[in-house]
């Protein structure tokens, strides 16, 4: 009989674990997520960096130090296998004062200790040759070529699609309400959709990992939400070619200036610790955004007028007690594995975390993992009309005219792209039609107009494909419906 594994949380950690565990013949893997789609928690709003691994002190944070560089190396392979949008453009940690070089030397040394290749300190001339738009106060930098950027939600989606293709079963809109433990062993998870039997439970619940752990009687850590806010600019605003960090201070890694993978200048984050009960506080604030703006300006003085901002957003990072990742099989509850406190560099570390979990299952739980004879490591990226050369687009349109019809005018996303996105939502078990699910798969609604032209059209397509009324289509899950009924609903005295 197969060993049943329940992974709680379909963020970047849970999805990576699901993919890696889908390789094994003797596991039956269930991926459980309370949101309507995957990657909507911590993975959704962050700086989207694949870090270099020089930042984490191996004495203080051994897990982070070990898994970050390993994760970086694995991502170089995973982005190819899974066709995840990415860029390997390197990072510059910029010095503006002579003392900053002491700190950069420290980072360089730590990088060497962690096994980071190709790092070096560069002088002012080379720095300005690389990034002419930097502050004139810059005097040198640490150059880390292995740093890159990926689309974090597209990455989660790719991982889950690949996992599902390899037999993983998803349970979306499924909230864990309890962990059943008998005789010191896990038996399964209780959810709003019934009981899911499991021999192994992997807690990858992000901000809620402490609450899930407590359901199993494990109470030695807490997760604090730490908010980070960001600005995103229109795609004709010039940004840097590389990821720019200020020299870190003891308190902060600083505000990053970067051109994200879709070509938008992005600045952020600040760091604001919130009380533990505010794990759903994703509101941007005037003060926070001011801090981001001022911080970014120190590195990139030519910020455009605020009217060129196309979006501001905030994300929460799960800060664990102690600061290091908590990745281990808990001794008092056999079969319960914590993957908790996956704060920065969690996105980078995710593939390495997944292999770490596989090792824990073998080493600590004594389950011999048997590889499948046929496991498919590949997953094809969704069609993006805007990436196709005209002759390729034409071939596709001949087969399916929907690919010739543009829905999102800012980013040239076609109706065909969107229908393909909806098919893929259904493939991984998305039950509630949401504009955000389409957005994260196609980049529609993310351009200059932020969806004011195309959102109503996407709503129509979702309504038709899901067989619901258009006003029942949501922006981001139940409670965020696009409308309250048909246009005469209030006059008839009805409302949805």
């Amino acid at each position, binding site marked *: 009989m197969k060993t049943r594994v329940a992974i709680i949380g379909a963020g970047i950690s849970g999805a990576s674990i699901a993919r890696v565990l889908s390789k094994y013949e003797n596991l039956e893997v269930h991926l459980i997520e309370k949101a309507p789609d995957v990657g909507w928690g911590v993975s959704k709003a962050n700086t989207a960096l694949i870090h270099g691994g020089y930042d984490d002190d191996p004495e203080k944070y051994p897990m982070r130090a070990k898994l970050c560089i390993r994760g970086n190396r694995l991502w170089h392979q995973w982005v190819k296998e899974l066709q995840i949008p990415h860029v390997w453009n390197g990072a510059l940690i910029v010095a503006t004062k002579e003392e900053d070089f002491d700190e950069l030397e420290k980072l360089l040394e730590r990088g060497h200790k962690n096994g980071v290749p190709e790092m070096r300190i560069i002088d002012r001339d080379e720095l300005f040759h690389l990034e002419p738009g930097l502050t004139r106060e810059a005097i040198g930098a640490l150059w880390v070529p292995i740093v890159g950027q990926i689309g974090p939600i597209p990455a989660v989606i790719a991982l889950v699609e690949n996992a599902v293709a390899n037999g993983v079963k998803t349970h979306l809109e499924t909230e864990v309400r309890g962990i059943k433990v008998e005789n010191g062993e896990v038996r399964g998870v209780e959810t709003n959709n019934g009981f899911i039997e499991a021999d192994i439970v992997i807690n990858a619940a992000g901000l809620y990992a402490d609450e899930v752990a407590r359901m199993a009687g494990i109470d030695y850590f807490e997760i604090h939400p730490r908010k980070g806010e960001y600005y995103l600019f229109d795609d004709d605003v010039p940004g840097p070619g590389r990821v720019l960090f200020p020299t870190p201070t003891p308190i902060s890694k600083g505000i990053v200036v970067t051109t994200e993978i879709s070509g938008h200048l992005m600045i952020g984050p600040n760091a604001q610790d919130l009380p533990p009960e505010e794990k759903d506080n994703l509101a941007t*604030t005037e003060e926070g955004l001011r801090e981001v703006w001022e911080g970014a300006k120190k590195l990139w003085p030519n910020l455009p007028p605020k009217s060129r901002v196309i979006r501001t957003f905030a994300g929460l990072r799960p800060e664990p007690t102690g600061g290091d990742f908590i990745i281990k099989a808990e001794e008092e509850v056999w079969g319960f594995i914590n993957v908790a406190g996956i704060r920065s560099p969690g996105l980078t570390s995710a593939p390495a975390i997944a292999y770490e979990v596989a090792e824990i299952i073998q080493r600590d739980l004594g389950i011999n993992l048997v590889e499948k004879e046929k496991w498919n490591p590949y997953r094809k990226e969704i069609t993006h009309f805007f990436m196709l050369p005209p002759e390729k687009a*034409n071939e596709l349109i001949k087969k399916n005219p929907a690919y*010739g*019809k543009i829905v999102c005018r800012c980013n040239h996303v076609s109706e065909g792209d969107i229908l393909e996105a909806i098919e893929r939502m259904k493939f991984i078990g998305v039950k509630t039609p949401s504009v955000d699910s389409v957005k994260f798969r196609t980049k529609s609604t993310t351009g200059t107009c*932020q969806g*004011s032209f195309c959102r109503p059209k996407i709503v129509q397509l979702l309504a038709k494909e899901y067989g619901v009324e258009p006003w029942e289509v949501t*922006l981001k899950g139940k409670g965020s419906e696009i409308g309250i009924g048909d246009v005469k609903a209030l006059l008839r005295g009805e409302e949805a």
Partner: protein
Amino acid sequence: MEPMPQISMLSYDVVVIGGGPAGMAAAVKAKELGLNVLLLDENDYLGGILPQCIHPGFGLHYFKEELTGPEFASRLAKRLVELGVEYRTAARVLEIKNYSDLEKVVIFTSPAGVYQVWTKAIIYAAGARERHAFEIGIVGDRVAGIYTAGEAQTLMDIYGILPGKEVVIVGSGDVGLIMARRFALEGAKVKAVIELMPYPGGLARNVMILRDFNIPLYLSHKVVEVRGRGRVQRVKVVRVDENLNETGEEFWIEADTLVISAGLIPSVKKLKKIGVEIDPATGGPVVNDRLETSVPGIFVAGNSLLINDLVDYVAEQGELAAESAKEFIEKGGIESRKWVKVRKGQNVRLIAPHYLSGDRDVYLYLRVARPMENVELRIPEIGKKLRLPVVKPAEMIRLKLRAEEIQKASEKLTVEVVRA
């Protein structure tokens, strides 16, 4: 010129980009003038934004009678079809290339495939887009229930969806006021219209809506924050001082819907890419009196030129652009012995066209920076004076200048609005 194998090629005298009132009027006129014209529009239907403007108030100048938006659009569309103008809907322009004055390429995609169109002239009439909540600095939760006015209008009047029931409207421009009425008519409660400036932003006839439907207007106020879980629950309003800086005075309004009507911006990104010079004041291209941009043979009309109040003027600009395209194609270019530069004087916020030849009569379109009463519009260089009882930023001034008047100027003309 790079060859594009497997891409169907078409050839026309003029391609009109955009099938709204400016584009349709341009295509009709071009056809009447004997040009071989192709009209492209990205929507499934012609008319641009008009089909969702179901209120009356259109066409008093152009058709000499009051029409609704869909009626105005269908009149133009009917004429277009009668004349046999070639048009394609669901056709989105991907790129414009300018090889030489009379050799341009428009690449578009459609359900029938990707096409490259060789053309001598282009009339760009792609309209405008709306400012959204992020651009005007609203912070807080990114939840459902926040719509631009145009999006709310599309949902209601194209797709028959009611967005919400308790509405706050940001901006007292025409679109905001018309949406206030639209929501009220469908039984929603419009709790407030919030206007940043100390005066309303719409045409007088639309400001009346507030009284008719008993909707509170907060002048010198702005919405700064939205809070809600899943959907908007409340919005924070702050009073601003005379310099538009936030005062400490603030309050919250409970609402499930926030409609942003904070102005329009000409959609000219594709023109910028080929080097068309843009006027930061209008947001549209710098043009001469034929509505030709800084790239010869590319003409612009309607809200891509500058934001208009009246569709009649938009159609008028479309016709002029078509006449100009004809002239351009016949003569191989638009030429003038001299170009008189139009300058903004006192209390003129924006003005177009920017260069006048003096070879023909022109309409100048301008807006003032602040409202004033009992004023004189003056052009000192040619001794022109015009008394106006009242001027408002919300109301575009359309001023006819005769060729002989323009000829009196040597290099420049300054248009100013001063106390009489």
